[in-house]
């Protein structure tokens, strides 16, 4: 009988080795899945993991990894603070939508200005929009003790309806012949969020993700607030003795995660997505929750996890298009990878022992 024994300290070796082990296991079991579907497993695995980074079209796809990872990282960084403190913001998707709508609305209100300065109030609007949307569950929690999981989740659906209304109503392109969707920011350069270096895929959202990743690291490692957040998560009672106000922490953590989600939405709508549409959101707010935990709620880990997640999306898409695999098979494969990443992680904190006496 095998049993787990807790390590006194997390293993430095396994900290880095577990992702590798997980990927190898996923390749093996995913390979079996692909083989059972009549495709060559080696080709599929190579298409997913190798081609986006080193393959024939890597010059384009490498940039796309950043495009895809940017919003995931940005949202996950914000969420990780709250998750550390035991504050459950499940509704980042809604905050992302509202941030995008607010950012776009400010930009479109000044159409067709040529002043690049407009981009600054747009960023502010995106931040504030996401922040305000997150403040609803935060204030309901602090004032009325209402559970933030339910409120933030329900507000995603409300945000989606507002998005539909924006796309078919108040932000509709007046020159769009009545069709839904806002003006496209790619033809409104003053307010757009373009690629900063051609072909790199890096836009202001990616820059923000990296800068905020650094700030989050400093906050958690050096700042008193970081200490309070960690303490509240691990020992809520001790935190109270230390004079940490739980309500202040809720407002702070929800606010930061909402603002960052809103910021991600604003960068996405003005950059890669280009316009407000009925289906503008694609689930980044939910996927970012996985990214946050996959990165062990650590800023560096989150950046890596975001990139891995992006790789499976981009590579999976390539496999699907080029090899005719159903996109459902890719989804199963992604699920497997996450299972293994999460499962193998046990080796970091525990060692496996043959059970002796007990």
């Amino acid at each position, binding site marked *: 009988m095998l049993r787990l024994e807790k390590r006194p300290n997390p293993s430095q070796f396994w900290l880095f080795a577990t992702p590798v082990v997980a990927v190898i296991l996923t390749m093996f079991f995913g390979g079996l899945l692909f083989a059972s579907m009549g495709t060559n497993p080696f080709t599929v695995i190579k298409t997913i993991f190798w081609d986006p980074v080193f393959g*024939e*079209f890597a*010059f*384009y*796809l490498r940039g*796309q990894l950043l*495009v*895809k990872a940017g919003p995931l990282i940005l949202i996950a960084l914000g969420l990780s603070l709250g998750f550390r403190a035991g504050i459950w913001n499940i509704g980042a998707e809604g905050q992302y939508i509202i941030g995008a709508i607010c950012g776009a609305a400010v930009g479109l209100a000044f159409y067709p200005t040529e002043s690049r300065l407009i981009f600054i109030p747009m960023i502010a609007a995106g931040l504030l929009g996401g922040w305000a949307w997150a403040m609803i569950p935060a204030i309901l929690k602090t004032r009325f003790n209402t559970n933030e999981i339910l409120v933030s989740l329900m507000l995603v659906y409300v945000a989606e*309806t507002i998005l*539909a*209304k924006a796309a*078919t*109503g108040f932000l509709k392109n007046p020159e769009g*012949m*009545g*069709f*839904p*969707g806002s003006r*496209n920011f*790619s033809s409104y350069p003053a307010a757009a969020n373009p690629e900063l270096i*051609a*072909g790199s895929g890096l836009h202001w959202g990616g820059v923000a993700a990296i800068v905020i990743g650094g700030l989050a690291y400093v906050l958690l490692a050096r700042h008193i607030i970081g200490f309070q957040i960690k303490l509240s998560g691990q020992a809520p009672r001790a935190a109270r003795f230390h004079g940490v106000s739980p309500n202040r922490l809720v407002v702070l953590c929800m606010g930061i995660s909402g603002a960052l989600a809103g910021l991600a939405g604003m960068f*996405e709508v003005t*950059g*890669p*997505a*280009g*316009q407000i*549409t*009925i*289906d*503008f959101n*694609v689930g980044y707010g939910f996927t970012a929750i996985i990214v946050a935990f996959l990165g062990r709620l650590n800023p560096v880990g989150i950046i890596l996890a975001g990139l891995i997640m992006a790789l499976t999306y*981009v590579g999976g*898409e*390539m496999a*699907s*298009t*080029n090899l*005719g695999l*159903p*996109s*459902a098979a890719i989804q199963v494969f992604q699920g497997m990878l996450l299972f293994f990443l999460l499962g193998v992680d046990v080796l970091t904190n525990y060692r496996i022992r043959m059970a002796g006496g007990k």
Partner: protein
Amino acid sequence: MLRRTLLASAALGLGLMAATSSLAAGMDKVKACFVYIGPIGDGGWTYQHHQGALAVQAAYGDKVEIAFQENVPESADAERVLTTMALGGCNIIFTTSFGYMDATNAIAAKFPDVKFEHATGFKRDSANVSTYNARFYEGRAVQGLIAGRMTKSNKIGYIGSFPIPEVIMGINSYYLNAKAVNPAVELSVVWAFTWFDPAKEADAAKALIDQGVDVIASHTDSTAPLAEAAKTNGAVIGFGQASDMSEYKDGPRVSSIIDNWAPYYVKRVGALLDGTYEQADAWEGIAGGEVEIGEITALVPAEVKAEAEALRDAIAAGTYHPFTGPINKQDGSAWLAAGATAPDGDLLGMGFFVEGIVGDIPQ
């Protein structure tokens, strides 16, 4: 053409396109690619597009290779999928949802030698972008006639997805043609605010039924409304939407609108093969075979069936237009004078209900 391809791509710094042996006159082999908004298993919109793709394969065999990508969101992901398809050697790419419009035009500008075909849009910014759509409102007219004749309660219903011109056009056509044969008819519209949520669609159908509606048309993708109608044991009828939904033929489904993209896809890929391909703005209806009226079942009396088929044939022959004046807008202002037919531009951007429909379009 091959050389231009190489030059153009190199100039853009996007590397080499897969070399296809193309001749100025035509091509020996075409790679046709399809971008889908949903899964093929949605049983409706994407399913029908995929049937069209399979028809292309069947029609040309070895001379075509098809590739497709399911579940592509209408966002930055669409641009990436289009770029990798173009890089990957696709000669013609069909983008099968309205939301891909800007992405299609943006990528088309970067790949002048790849043909792009965008469904249901209106932008053709570069010479290699064509648009195509189907005149679903023609099918709605036939459904409206059947609804007007078949309703006993004089209450007919329509489940709308989002308030966009495509849907509004269908509602107006359905109502006008029901009203033409039954002046007492009243129309109830329910907005589901989703394209696909079977349970919600069922609820919407149930709400209509509970309030006395006995003919239901829907503009969402699943068969849930028909299943709900089936529970009334024949009291309520409905129509198949997007696909034939023939599994309800012995029940409430009295007819259907079938989106048949196959003729268009086969024609366009064929044109690329034989070198006659040109930019197009296609909006075909019953006449072009893109909108098919599914079999009208025995539940419909023979004379109504004959009348519906006559309407269908008149639309196909061009002797009848579902939007023929005099028609006023909902607010009473004049839209079409007596005898005038609706210009395509008005239809494509339709943002108003016609006179007689109650309720507002969400704005």
